[in-house]
């Protein structure tokens, strides 16, 4: 924290304004880079087709969810993969906004995603040690970095990251009830969001210890604090509300889980999947395969979780470990997206890179260049990005 203050550059504009201008600038730069990459990659590219043109892979599912809602059973086009697999919070938010504005879906989704990213960046200021370099890097990572597609188009990652940052910001201020409310939204955004309850529990325990409490009086202390109890009870509300909806819609409260079978995902041990991915060498040349990229990303994720542990950020570390490990039981698919969208990961990465000005500048330039290649890779269907 003191290093961060020492590294803070001299300012000529008020800090509050700077903290808004940085993500706004990152958003503009990101839009320009992604558009240039889009124009260089797609035939007949135009500004009018930009937002829709970046909507690839699962994005189409979200668009349909926002416009039409959830399918019944059987699905209208008689496929096994129903859209119940996708959690409702973000498509529902965009769905409401497109009803209110009557604007095209992808335009609304893009604007909402960018607004949520800017919000997440601003709220993350204290979580980044109030280090302006780390803050700038985090802004660029989300809005103008190699994986900015996830946070600026129509993917659930952006709301997931926003709410995760909100939960941890609330926890850092010991506002447990507020954290529980954000956690409720998180558990309606992605299934792993429900495990934020462990982070809340750990922070409550640390708060208890800081007040001189022991493990013997922990449970009585929690029961004597209705705000804490309510916070824990609120955390899974989004998940259970979605399950209740699925019960009435489909007759199966676990439809989101059961439908995974239609995607033919494997089931196995995470270390085996990671090992196999790392060993999936290219048939020729030295450019890593998509599997190797996913494997390496997963390793980086665990290293960052380890750093969180080492820095005694136990809540973030525990949540990250659970959120990293659970999807791995179904293979390596989408791990790059999951790691990028797991807030403690980019927060920790940017904090580390932001400790040194030279490193921060190099990282910033690398991220901006990466935004180009990330967008081109996205548009040319580079599998690791899916």
């Amino acid at each position: 924290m003191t290093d961060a203050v020492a590294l803070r550059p001299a300012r000529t504009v008020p800090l509050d304004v700077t903290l808004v201008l940085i993500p706004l600038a990152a958003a503009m730069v990101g839009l320009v880079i992604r558009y240039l990459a889009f124009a260089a990659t797609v035939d007949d590219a135009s500004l009018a087709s930009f937002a829709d043109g970046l909507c690839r892979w699962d994005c189409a599912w979200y668009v349909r969810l926002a416009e039409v809602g959830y399918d019944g059973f059987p699905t209208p086009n008689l496929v096994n993969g129903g859209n119940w697999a996708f959690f409702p919070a973000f498509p529902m938010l965009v769905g409401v906004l497109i009803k209110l504005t009557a604007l095209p879906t992808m335009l609304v989704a893009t604007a909402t995603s960018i607004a949520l990213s800017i919000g997440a960046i601003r709220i993350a200021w204290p979580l980044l040690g109030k280090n302006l370099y780390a803050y700038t890097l985090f802004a660029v990572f989300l809005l103008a970095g190699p994986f900015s597609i996830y946070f600026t188009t129509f993917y659930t990652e952006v709301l997931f990251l926003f709410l995760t940052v909100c939960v941890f910001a609330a926890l850092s201020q010991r506002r447990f009830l507020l954290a529980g409310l954000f956690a409720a939204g998180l558990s309606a955004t992605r299934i792993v969001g429900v495990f934020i309850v462990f982070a809340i529990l750990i922070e409550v325990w640390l708060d208890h210890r800081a007040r001189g409490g022991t493990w013997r009086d922990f449970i009585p202390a929690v029961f004597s604090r209705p705000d804490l109890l309510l916070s824990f009870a609120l955390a899974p509300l989004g998940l259970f509300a979605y399950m209740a909806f699925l019960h009435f819609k489909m007759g199966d409260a676990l439809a989101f889980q059961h439908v995974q079978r239609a995607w033919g995902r494997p089931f196995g041990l995470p270390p085996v999947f990671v090992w196999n991915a790392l060993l999936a060498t290219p048939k020729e040349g030295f450019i890593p395969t998509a599997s190797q990229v996913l494997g390496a990303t997963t390793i980086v994720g665990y290293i960052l979780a380890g750093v969180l542990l080492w820095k005694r950020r136990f809540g973030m570390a525990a949540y990250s470990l659970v959120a990293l490990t659970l999807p791995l039981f179904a293979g390596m698919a989408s791990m790059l997206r999951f790691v990028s969208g797991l807030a403690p990961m980019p927060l920790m990465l940017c904090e580390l890179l932001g400790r040194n000005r030279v490193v921060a500048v190099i990282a910033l330039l690398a991220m901006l260049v990466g935004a180009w290649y990330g967008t081109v890779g996205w548009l040319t269907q580079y599998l690791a990005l899916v």
Partner: protein
Amino acid sequence: MTRPLSLAAYALTAILLAGYALVMWWVIHPKVPESYRAYYIDQTTTCMNQPVAGTYTLGTVVSFLPDGRDAAKPLKPCGWEGPTGDGTHAVGTSSRLRFSWTEPKTGSLSLSLDLIAVKKGGVAMPQTVDVIVNEQKLATLKVGADAPSHFDVAVPAGLVADGRAEVVFEFPDAVQMGLTDPPTRWRSIKLLAAGLVPA
């Protein structure tokens, strides 16, 4: 927290927990159609029986290559992928065809099939295919992988008297192509053509 707020928080917590208990009750008591339960929940089949129409003209043989895409589509409830250039690929441990026709019956019928087994890494994987029509097993076919084989399976007249044939193919020798492929992705045969023709 003031006392009324504390009481309200306790009450809200209790209501939420009661709600969660109710949802958990729904979790262990799903109310779903049999086909949904078999595929998604019990996982007793890899073939999710979809309500396709089965629209078919009796006596015709439908191509399951790309040229017959439109005619074949309403005949495939589940367990098929494609068509690709070499046929419609069976996926999973069973596949299903549905034939529904309005033409008057003219006598005994024969289920005409052109099949070829898959290869794995260039190695032929001969397949055993059990053919079941309207829940009655009619034949066990041995399908090779070197060249397409033609089969005519006799269908008793009484079995399809109502102008409808639910044909199930079971693949006891289905092959796991990739190390981590789940049973829904196992491969067995490719279907090139099928139809119900006069015996």
